[in-house]
């Protein structure tokens, strides 16, 4: 596969970070706090999702849960574009 994302992952001066926890957090942030909000005849008011997120932050400290959830989905890699080596050499 040659998605742009794979290219990020294999780039030589790109390092992988410990992605699991951040990835989960990023995903929850996107899904719960962003995305088009459609008002109208829906059963749950999504306007207060911020409140939910506060609770989730607490939960996410539980790595076990995070990992369990992560296994559910295609892993989304996260690439840190940080040439740490070069920086340390100077």
């Amino acid at each position, binding site marked *: 596969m040659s998605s742009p994302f794979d290219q990020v992952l294999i*780039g030589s001066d790109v390092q992988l970070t410990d992605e699991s926890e951040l990835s989960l957090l*990023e995903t929850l942030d996107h899904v719960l706090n962003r995305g088009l909000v459609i008002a109208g005849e829906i059963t749950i008011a999504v306007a207060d999702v911020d409140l939910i997120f506060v609770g989730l932050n607490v939960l996410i400290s539980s790595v076990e849960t995070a990992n369990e959830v992560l296994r559910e989905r295609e892993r989304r890699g996260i690439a*840190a574009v940080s040439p740490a080596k070069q920086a340390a050499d100077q």
Partner: protein
Amino acid sequence: MSGSEQTKLHLNSHDSAVAVGYYVYCIADAARASEIVESGSPIPIEEGATLELINEKNLGAVVSRVPLATYGEEPLAALLTDGAWTAIRAMRHEAVVEFFAKRTSVVPLRFGTIYLDQSGVEQMLDEKSEQLTEIIHRLDGREEWGVNVYCDRQMLMENISLVSSRLRQMTEEAQQASPGQAYLMHKKIEVLKVDEAKAQVARAVDQIEGKLHDFSDDNVRLRILKVETTENGELKAKFAFLVLRSNFENFRNAAEELAVELSTSGMKIELTGPWPAYNFAAA
């Protein structure tokens, strides 16, 4: 079961009155969505259900049926306080939206958009068709990339002392001053260093935003949810950029150049994605 607020509900095939609602993930062009649904599908928000399309005016809403015993307003509000339950559903929501977003332009909806019946979804598509069509068109061929900016405080502070001529001069003066004077001067230097560090981080963040802006169609600065201290340092800024797929290489190269340039001052840049365009779905 309270059963108090049942309206027009779809029953399942077994005659038992299991009230269902329609959980909506995203909206896409109806024809494209139909092809994609046929090509296979990820797990919907509740296992055992299947993804369906509700079409209206060339638009297709990707939905799956959910039991209202779980997804009705009250039971759902209670379940949402269970972080594990919510996290798993949020992941499934994301997996479905991603599945479509990889294959066509979609309007990603926020978690928890649930209609009591099919006609509600149709009506929404009808009423908002112009707006939704515009968004789908605008997002076509584009993906969202997250850019997180971190700062290693120690490295930043060390670097500040080196690059600021004023600080360097003061440090030299302090070395030659009497112990009492030197003490006061060092206090002053510390304060200056903190100010200078703040200013430098702000400049770096602006620089990142400005440069990556040139390689994207749109960008937003996001609020930082909590002070995250990771192995990369402290999270200083979060952005989302809407990037044309065909321009991603350039975007990424620009990010890498920035990363190299800013690394000496302890700044790190992290790319996440590609995401469905959650941050650019508003009309």
